[in-house]
């Protein structure tokens, strides 16, 4: 087990280094940097000024030097400076993280509390009309773009309250909390609740076919006890995996939803930084996302071993 963990951690490091290389060079394969963009906008400017600015930003150096400079900084906790605001990147990114984290947490909560019960119901009544309806609804959940769902929510709030909810960084009442965090998190969570439901359903179906379930029924255990006590307990493992991995991949939904609801989180910040070619922000944010994904994957695998005593990682 210990050897396995060490190996996994080493692989995680390799993956992260790989991502840093890919992102860094990908962002720089296109000719034209922030200085060109700034100077293009300003019209004719003295080439000496341009060279000065390039030197100031460190982009006159060879790419490899720039890369090593970035990684060296990362290890010391220095993420460089935003090209646009000229503030330290860390200062720009840190305050936005809790906003996105709260949204993601609520979205997962929504996803699990809607997806798991519906998945169980769908499996228990397999082949019934209800199962059919639930499956079609869950497929449609996978088909709606979350930004459109967000726009529909905005539309509903316009018709009900006559206005679009405005982001409130410090919600006091439940109403404010609802419009600031819960509505957007539903737009994000709807899709993943559909995914959770599908996984719960197929996992439950597999477990319900097993012998010990028949034994439990033969012994006279009630339906509710069999379904929830015997079956769900074992069927929940793959569901945990999916929710865990979804947690990291929610970022895709968060990017568009934060844009729709005008929420100043990290996800929307990534899009803004890409538009502005604010590379220090982009590369650090992408690294942050990669770390979250890789750590989530690792945690899920470890949880698996904790929850299922049959699983022992050896290598």
């Amino acid at each position, binding site marked *: 087990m210990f050897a396995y963990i060490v190996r996994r951690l080493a*692989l995680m490091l*390799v*993956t*992260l280094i*790989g*991502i840093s290389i*890919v*992102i860094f060079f*990908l*962002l720089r*394969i*296109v000719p034209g940097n922030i200085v060109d963009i700034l100077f293009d906008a300003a019209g004719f400017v003295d080439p000496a000024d341009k060279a000065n600015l390039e030197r100031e930003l460190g982009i006159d150096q060879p790419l490899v030097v720039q890369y090593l400079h970035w990684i060296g900084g990362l290890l010391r906790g220095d993420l460089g400076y935003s090209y646009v605001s000229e503030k330290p990147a860390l200062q720009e990114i840190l305050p936005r993280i809790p906003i996105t984290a709260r949204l993601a947490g609520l979205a997962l909560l929504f996803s699990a509390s809607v997806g798991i019960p519906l998945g169980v119901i769908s499996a228990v009544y397999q082949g019934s009309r209800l199962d059919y309806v639930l499956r*079609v609804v869950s*497929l*449609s959940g*996978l*088909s*709606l*773009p979350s*930004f*459109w769902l967000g*726009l*529909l929510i*905005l*539309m509903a709030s*316009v018709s009900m309250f006559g206005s*679009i909810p405005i982001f409130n960084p410090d919600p006091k009442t439940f109403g404010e909390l609802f419009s600031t965090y819960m509505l957007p998190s539903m737009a994000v969570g709807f899709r993943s609740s559909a995914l959770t439901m599908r996984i719960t*359903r*197929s996992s439950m*179906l*597999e477990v319900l076919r097993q012998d010990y379930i028949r034994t439990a029924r033969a012994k006279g255990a009630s339906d509710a006890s069999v379904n929830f006590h015997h079956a769900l307990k074992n069927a929940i493992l793959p569901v945990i995996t999916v929710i865990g991995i979804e947690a*990291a*991949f929610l*970022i*895709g939904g968060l*990017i*568009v939803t934060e*844009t*729709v609801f*005008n929420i100043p989180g990290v996800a929307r910040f*990534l*899009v803004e930084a*890409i*538009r502005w*070619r604010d590379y220090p922000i*982009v590369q650090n944010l*992408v690294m942050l*996302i*990669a770390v979250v*994904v*890789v750590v989530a994957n690792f945690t899920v695998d470890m949880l698996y071993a904790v929850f299922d005593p049959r699983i022992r990682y050896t290598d």
Partner: protein
Amino acid sequence: MDAINYDIELKRAGAKATHGWSRLRFLAQRHILGTIGLAIMTLFVFAALFADLICRYDPLTVDSAHALAHPSAAHWMGTDSFGRDVWARIIHGARISLAVGIGSTVLGGSIGVVVGLTSGYLSGWVDLVFQRVTDVLQALPLLVLALVMTAALGPSLPNVIIAIAIPLIPTVSRVIRANTLALRELPFVEAAKSIGMSEMRIALRHVLPNTLAPLIVLGTAQLGSTILTEASLSFLGLGIPEPYPSWGRMLSESAAEYVRVAPWLVIFPGIAISLAVFGTNLFGDALRDILDPRQRG
């Protein structure tokens, strides 16, 4: 792992005929949802192919006199802020969505097949390198990687296709690799080897055709998410550039404003995206049930 015999599978399911149209009709009756999905997909393909015949208006013609017109007999789905006909833009938008969806699925799928086959067949250090590269590509959500790629390549139709295709490679190559590893051990591959067939020929003539079913299943499943990703990219203003009618672009950020004044500009493109993705999802699910009985839930 055995190759699947579809005739036996069909007989087991109660089909009397195992050939031609009657076989298709049997499958269609058994998988009603899948058939609906296929019908929806066909509808969009028709829209894309005959867009010029279906619409009275040109999707790009600006008519500021009729900007933000409500849906009416003249403009079924109203007009946008430039007075362009929304119905025409949605029908023409099917071209963009399908081009990106099919283009990136085929491109990413083909590269994935080559990588997966090579990786599974050669094993050793080639496999190791490919696997690590796959890890890297899989550690980023599809939309994030596609965003960075379009940012690097610049917004245009071919670039969007490439940007969405690359993140698809790992999923495909993983499946093909696993399949190849399993198939390599089967007697018919050994037989082919014993009569002196070259490795290349075995890989292409014997192993590849047997990975086709999972490949088709995977491809259809991916089609929906590529369409969604294109819509998201264009919605964020980093996908298909103006003035081309892309559904996602039609919903772009100004949509938050239109929610109040012109709801039709929000409703119709969203329905188009959802319906197209829903169709591919329905069809993909049925296809998985038919082609890959092992995965049946």
